[in-house]
């Protein structure tokens, strides 16, 4: 894939614009995934994907042939997502999902669980979503990269253009804020789990 990407990049720089379409096709899914995980909104994620590949094309002549195109475009995607978050923060838009208590997508760990568990999981997801909204754009991106995308501190720092210590602190601040927001609800979640386990032992 890496060699293919490099060959495509050479073709693009040689004037064959359509070769970039193949690069977009190869990487659009992964870019959409990270864009959605950061923005948690489909429309925003689509916007980030488009902006990412636009920026990527314009900066393609600066692409270092020794690096990986996937990593390179991933970094651009993160910065585009960060820009979207900054824009939203500045415009102070209240997401419609928050206003109506709806979620764009709910990750339910166990679909075979009972209605009480599903309800609690949904409640936790709503709280998590709200807690994520309270993070600063940098904290949010750093947390998603570290916790969800499992990227190293160095990678986060490189993508955000900050020192590794700053990236680490951003993750720490995000975790503390999420913990403060979610801890009260997690207690009830754990209690429900314990009750379910006890019931299963009795049966």
């Amino acid at each position, binding site marked *: 894939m890496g060699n293919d990407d490099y060959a495509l990049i050479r073709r693009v720089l040689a004037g064959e614009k359509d070769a970039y379409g193949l690069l*977009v096709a190869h990487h659009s899914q992964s870019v959409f995934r990270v864009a*959605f995980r950061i923005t948690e909104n489909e429309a925003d994620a689509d916007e980030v994907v*488009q902006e990412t590949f636009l920026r990527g094309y*314009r900066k393609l002549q600066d692409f270092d042939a020794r690096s990986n195109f996937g990593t390179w475009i991933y970094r651009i995607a993160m910065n585009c997502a960060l820009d979207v978050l900054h824009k939203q923060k500045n415009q102070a838009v209240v997401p419609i999902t928050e206003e109506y208590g709806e979620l764009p997508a*709910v*990750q339910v760990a166990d679909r075979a669980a009972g209605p009480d568990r599903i309800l609690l999981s949904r409640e936790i997801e709503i709280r998590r979503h709200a807690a994520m909204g309270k993070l600063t754009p940098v904290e949010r991106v750093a947390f998603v990269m570290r916790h969800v995308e499992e990227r190293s501190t160095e990678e986060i720092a490189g993508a955000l253009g900050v020192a590794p210590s700053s990236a*680490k602190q951003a993750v720490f601040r995000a*975790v503390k804020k999420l*913990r403060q927001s*979610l801890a009260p609800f997690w207690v009830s979640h754990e209690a429900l789990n314990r009750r379910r386990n006890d019931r299963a032992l009795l049966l």
Partner: protein
Amino acid sequence: MKHLTEEEMIGHFYSEDLRPAEAETHLRACQQCAQAYEKFSTLLRGVQAPGVPLRGSEYGAQVWQSIQGSLSSYRPVRNRRIFPWPRFAYGAACLLFLAGAFWAGRLWEHAHSQPAVANSEQQTKQRVVLLVLDNHFDRSERLLVQLNHAGGGGDYADFPLRAEARQLLSDNQLYRQSAAQTNDPVLNAALDHLERVLLEVANSGIEPTGRDIASIQKEMNTPGLLFQIRVLRARISEEKTNTHALPKGENI
């Protein structure tokens, strides 16, 4: 025993703590920290990313369709990177033009400056000669005037007159030899005449009388010589004025 801080727990959870073995040992030994870490890690593990909506296989093509209209093709890499014409060509042409203009200027200056320098040197030399001659004729004129007055009926001639004549004689010999190489018969004749007069005065007796002086005046025609010297001085003065008026832009 020092308990783990929240930051240390976060670092341990993400395997980014500086001393993981030490933290692990502490968590095994300290029940309080172990419980706190268990709660903490359970909470963090529970924070899951929302499910990513599916995008079909045609998604990439859709993205490309939406952006390709606003993208312009790159120029061929070879031309752009190795020789980005016409930017470098234009710069190179400018440099060549400047270098050519510089060398042309240098050559022109070299071709035209030598005669000017030569002329200048010649004029400077001529000016020095005129200045020296003017001075020599000035002194000679005064001596001839004194000589004419002394020969007016006095009984003796001034002793300094003879000494002055001797000094002027040696100078005049040099000037006459130099003037002999030039094509100036009036000047040569005047210097020759002056030398004979000076020689006569310088070799006059220790105490020349008025009669001796009058004899010299008569025999040597010193009034005629005086007039001749005055004419030469006027000519020299005129030439000095002309050499001062140098052509415009010409250096001395």
